[in-house]
């Protein structure tokens, strides 16, 4: 082992302070989403506070990525066409680029890879949410939003993982434990916990906080959590989206496939139980890649 000093809460705080804070519009949107008065008009009012965000939302609505049949000219129309949750997903996609489109070389990710991975995982999670079978339908837009910032902790821990990769990989491979569990053993904190801390500091909604913390193991959500039953299917969709992105190799880094699958999450996806079902799922997910490319190219042009 290389004798790295485990990270403390104070270290995390210092790292988090270096991260760019989300713009005011995101914080206001979060507040609104927590309030019982959320509706199309209120949402449009908040987005319109930020003229750059308003312009980006409208251009993204009218881009090939969304394929709408008529031109959208106001945020209110966009909310009416796409729905509240889809519009929030769009805002988060724009915001996530700011936080994730970075070189995270400690994880073997050149600039662009982490954001491609995030966006692909978000689209995969939304697709899989629609194919999951549980007591209630799973909200695909919540799964998208939950997935898009799921690896924010990697931005915080990148340099530390770069220095300790050999040790982390050794522990993960030897004991067949997941990469984040091995990170915890070597660094004292995993990228899931670092991301969870960041999400709390930013005041992100509870569903996002849980998606970040439990994306590799939804079943580890505490049974005492009063919202567990409600949040589990969305976090399960995020988990499965993440697993399929790894299997397809989209923007994955040195942590590769050193991850475990959560059986309870998988049970919600009946197609994953047979060879033919699984292959159909893979083909369906790969068919989403042009949509990822459209969104990436749009956001790149926008300089979002």
């Amino acid at each position, binding site marked *: 082992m290389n004798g790295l000093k485990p990270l403390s809460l104070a270290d995390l705080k210092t790292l988090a302070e270096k991260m760019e804070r989300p713009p005011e519009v995101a914080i206001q949107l979060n507040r609104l989403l927590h309030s019982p008065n959320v509706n199309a008009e209120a949402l449009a009012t908040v987005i319109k506070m930020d003229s750059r965000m308003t312009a980006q939302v409208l251009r993204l609505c009218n881009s090939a990525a969304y394929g709408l049949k008529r031109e959208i000219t106001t945020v209110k129309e966009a909310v009416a066409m796409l729905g509240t949750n889809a519009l929030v997903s769009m805002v988060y996609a724009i915001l996530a680029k700011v936080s994730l489109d970075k070189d995270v070389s400690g994880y073997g990710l050149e600039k662009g890879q982490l954001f491609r991975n995030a966006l692909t995982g978000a689209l995969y999670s939304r697709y899989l949410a629609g194919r999951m079978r549980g007591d209630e339908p799973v909200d695909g837009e919540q799964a998208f939003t939950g997935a898009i910032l799921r690896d924010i902790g990697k931005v915080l821990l990148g340099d530390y993982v770069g220095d300790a*990769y050999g040790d982390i990989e050794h522990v993960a491979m030897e004991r067949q434990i997941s990469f984040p569990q091995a990170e915890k053993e070597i660094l004292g904190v995993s990228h899931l916990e670092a991301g969870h801390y960041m999400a709390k500091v930013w005041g992100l909604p509870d569903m996002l906080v849980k998606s970040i913390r439990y994306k590799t193991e939804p079943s580890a959500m505490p049974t005492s959590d009063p919202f567990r039953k409600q949040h589990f299917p969305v976090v399960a969709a995020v988990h499965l989206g993440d*697993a399929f992105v*790894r299997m397809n*190799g989209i*923007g994955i880094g*040195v942590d590769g496939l050193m991850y*475990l699958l959560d*059986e309870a999450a998988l049970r919600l996806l009946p197609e994953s139980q047979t060879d033919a*079902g699984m292959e159909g799922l893979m083909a369906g997910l790969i068919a989403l890649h042009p949509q990822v490319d459209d969104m990436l190219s749009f956001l790149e042009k926008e300089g979002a």
Partner: protein
Amino acid sequence: MPKKPTTPKNVIAVAPGQWQLSQSAYQVFRAERVSAGLVMVVHFNGADEGDGMGAIAHVQLPQSSTENSGMLAVDTALQTMETELLALAQQKEIAVASISEMQVFLAGGAQLFAFGGGNNALNIGSRNVEAAHRWLQSHHALVTAEAVGENRARNVEYYVSMGQVWVTPLGGEDAVLAGPETD
């Protein structure tokens, strides 16, 4: 072991579901972050370095029975590569009759760590590799060299002129897959 050549600027990317046939012996192809998917290279050495030819495919599925699988599947990709290489050989007046006379390299087929349920359907990486072996056996061909399985994604580069396939696991060391006549 020979040292990996520097990746040229004009390297040709091969994304999942894509394949390429060499247009000249001096081309280099690259597939990035190959995970559960599989890169399959079919190579034929010419009489000298400039005569080499080959094809590369980056597939994700073991068989083409799935709707819209096309070049995503092992069987379709191998069949297409054999047909197109034989046509190219005929154009170049090279005497070769089937894939069994060519070299075949495989890289990829990684998998997530196992979990308690042992659901084999999820192990699509191994199934991709098995499907390639099965198809080749049924066409009397063998795998020349492979770097498959494990839990890491790999970058793969195919140098047509040298008949070499370089495999670099993310976070790991370069390794070369090559036919018997290469050091």
